[in-house]
């Protein structure tokens, strides 16, 4: 294959500027590799930069002696056709010495000045430990740090990772130490293994963090070996819970990003979005809910670093089509439309419509509605035995179930109805027994 000589990455793809400035960290595109096995050492990181990634968060550094990993580390939640829906790992932080990592980080940053390089760190929750490591990291020339306060397996048992991230006071404290002993941007990575993500984000903000990144992985057991009666991944005859990631966690991550983006105290806190981002559309969704950069891991682990090519290409073409001239131009655009249930319009009504020309008469919408919803689809059989499914409009509540179960693209559409009624929130609704007067 012949490749054109490359200069520094300007961030221009298909004429669209994908470059970002995330709390002062510049990158030619918003696609960063998350701190994880793919960013464990210079060899991988250089390959990622060569493939076109805008940034890398180096796999978490810790105190010496380095962590030791077990054999058998990953497992997956498979879809029906063996596609990986979710991914689970029990790896710890880097198992290489601090000195080796720092040396490699320094060299890589020098060789790739146009790319973002952020260093993930996890040391014990003691001021001295942070005071010791932060100057060493700063000396590498890396662009910023990300505090790993979320690792859900292994490290919490030693008082680190999620053990810190689940305690808002500790989050605030560690963030404060980092701002005290480190001059460049500090990003706090949040664990989703918590009741209310907003509390953790507010703590990071109080501690002076420049940004938060989320989500870290979710406590998980993906599957069991039912013959051996042990979960996967299996180490000897045992297993332990791991951290869950991959496309299955995207909906959870999106919600947590939105919660922080629309919470008054953290409304302006920059967010690096993480969680099941597998393609440009996922990335655009995180950005639309307020993320300024996105981090990817599982998709790269499953397909290699090359996936970033399509991510950049697809995102830039979509942006051009929509007229967005930069990532910032659409960042947070969907936040205002994400609200509490009580603010939804009680007078809005939508109704399913089945396109008879594309319907294949599989009956899935019918049985789903008949058994589990509102009996709003009629099954009609003509004299010749031909079947036809029709929506009973007066019964349809617009739940979308039929549309979700339909195997044919665009066969069932949900049509908003002209009710002639004005917007009415639950707070205003006369059916609300706790309706606010006035």
């Amino acid at each position: 294959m012949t490749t054109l000589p490359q200069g520094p990455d300007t961030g221009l793809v298909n004429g669209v500027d994908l470059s970002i400035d995330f709390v002062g960290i510049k990158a030619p595109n918003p696609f960063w590799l998350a701190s994880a096995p793919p960013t464990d050492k210079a060899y991988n990181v250089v390959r990622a930069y060569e493939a076109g990634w805008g940034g890398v968060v180096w796999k978490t550094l810790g105190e010496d002696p380095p962590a030791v990993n077990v054999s058998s580390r990953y497992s997956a939640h498979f879809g029906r056709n063996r596609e990986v829906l979710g991914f689970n790992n029990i790896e710890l932080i880097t198992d290489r010495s601090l000195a080796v990592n720092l040396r490699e980080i320094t060299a890589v940053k020098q060789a790739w000045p146009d790319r973002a390089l952020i260093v993930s760190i996890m040391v014990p929750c003691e001021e001295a430990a942070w005071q010791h490591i932060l100057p060493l990291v700063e000396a590498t020339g890396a662009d910023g740090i990300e505090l790993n306060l979320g690792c859900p397996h292994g490290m919490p048992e030693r008082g680190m990772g999620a053990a810190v991230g689940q305690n808002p006071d500790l989050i605030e404290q560690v963030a404060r130490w980092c701002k005290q002993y480190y001059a460049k941007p500090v990003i706090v990575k949040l664990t989703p293994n918590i009741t209310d993500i907003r509390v953790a984000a507010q703590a990071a903000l109080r501690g002076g963090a420049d940004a938060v990144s989320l989500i870290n992985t979710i406590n998980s057991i993906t599957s069991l070996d039912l013959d051996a009666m042990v979960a996967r991944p299996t180490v000897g005859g045992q297993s332990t819970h791991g951290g869950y990631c991959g496309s299955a966690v995207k909906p959870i991550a999106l919600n947590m990003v939105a919660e922080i983006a629309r919470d008054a105290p953290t409304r302006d806190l920059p967010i690096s979005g993480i969680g099941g981002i597998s393609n440009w559309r996922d990335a655009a969704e995180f950005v639309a809910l307020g993320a300024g950069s996105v981090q990817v891991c599982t998709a790269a682990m499953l397909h290699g670093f090359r996936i970033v090519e399509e991510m950049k290409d697809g995102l830039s073409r979509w942006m051009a089509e929509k007229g967005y001239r930069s990532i910032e131009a659409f960042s947070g655009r969907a936040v205002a439309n994400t609200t509490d249930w009580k603010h939804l319009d009680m007078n809005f009504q939508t109704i399913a419509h089945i396109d008879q020309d594309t319907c294949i008469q599989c009956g899935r919408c019918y049985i789903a509605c008949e058994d589990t919803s509102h009996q709003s689809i009629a099954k009609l059989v003509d004299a010749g035995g031909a079947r036809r499914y029709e929506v009973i409009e007066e019964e349809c509540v617009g739940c979308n179930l039929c549309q979700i179960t339909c195997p044919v693209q665009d066969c069932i559409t949900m049509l908003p109805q002209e009710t002639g009624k004005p917007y009415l929130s639950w707070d205003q609704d006369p059916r609300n027994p706790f309706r606010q007067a006035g």
Partner: protein
Amino acid sequence: MNHDLTHLPRVGDALADRPGMSPQALDDNFSDLHPPLTQRQAIIESERCLYCYDAPCIEACPSDIDIPRFIRQISEHNINGAAHTILEQNILGGSCARVCPTEILCERSCVRNHDAECQPVLIGLLQRHATDHMQFDAHPFERAADSGRHVAVVGAGPAGLACAHRLAMFGHRVTIFEAEAKPGGLNEYGIARYKMTDDFARKEVEFLLEIGGIEIRHGQRLGHNLSLARLHTDYDSVFLGLGLGTSRRLGLTGEEAPGLAPAVDYIKELRQADDLTRLPLARRCVVIGAGNTAIDMATQMARLGADEVALVYRRGVEAMSATGHEQEIARANGVRMVTWAKPVEVLLDAGGRVAGMRFEKTRAADGRLVGTGETFEVAADAVFRAIGQGFDGDSLSDPAAGELARDGERIRVDEAFRTSLPGVYAGGDCVAPGQDLTVQAVQHGKLAAHAIHQDLLAKQEAA
């Protein structure tokens, strides 16, 4: 074989003239026409099923198999569950998976044929996957406690076997009377060799008999050494699954000449042959007919090494009873399809053997077939007739059998497969309704067993 083909060369003699042909290549020509799915292919294909509600494929299946259910079971790696779902409706589900014309049954009705996809789920191959890979420690169906009743079944073909198995499930003892040396009927003797390989028909019957309570007596031919009157007296009920034992004749002089034979006789010999090289070979072959038997005959002779095979039919291809899929198999094997021509004379050589056929061109006039008067000849070393099967007249010659009401030559039955003679039931190709499909015969046998059981219970209650 009654019909003389002994003057023809053997298949093995011709092998030497043919580049690339060997006994091994010949055997390969008769291995699985449609290879089975691998485990991975089966899983991928099973995922394509939409698990339709009130699925059209079930409606199209003559034996009422819950197709979406068994396909979902395959996708969940529950192969024994899938096989059970198939076999509880169709105990010969393994052979039906191989011989059913799925392209006009379940697969034709699959919603995935819709314009946007144009590709049905491969239901037949999935059914084969489930039945090929099932592994039961014991026969998956149980006999009910012995009822004390004993039912006679005539014919160990698909109808008789299915009937016997279901009767056994109800706890009735069954004795099957079979004319041939092996059970299985057309599965054993009448299916193209490459559609059912590796002695599958025998193994399937062995599996079916594992339920117990079924005895098969061979060499028992109704109207010869067996009478319906006797069976009617000696047994609590009788089921007739006689099939259609004779091949229709062309009605021309010279029909007895060496070189002219019924296709079913040749197919039977081919299926039973241990060594294909010893079969008679018609280097130039004419097959007359338009059904699956004609296609099987023509295609198999081509695969045995014939130089020219012509299939001649008096109407156009659209009127052929062989499905489009079957016709394509024949064409792909080099069979020449000659349509709008009817046989008018068997051409003989000086020794009185078949040398060819003379045909008259035909056309449709107001829906009726008429000869144009124009004739042509096709040279042939052998001519095989495959213009349909008829009743073996002897089988229903005894006085009791003679009383059976008939529709045309076939036995008349009601919707529960009762004949006009109380206590006597019939199903499969020998009865009036249907398209002479294996799967239909199985359904007839199964439903007749239910009727027999109900009628026996009713009789018991009345007594």
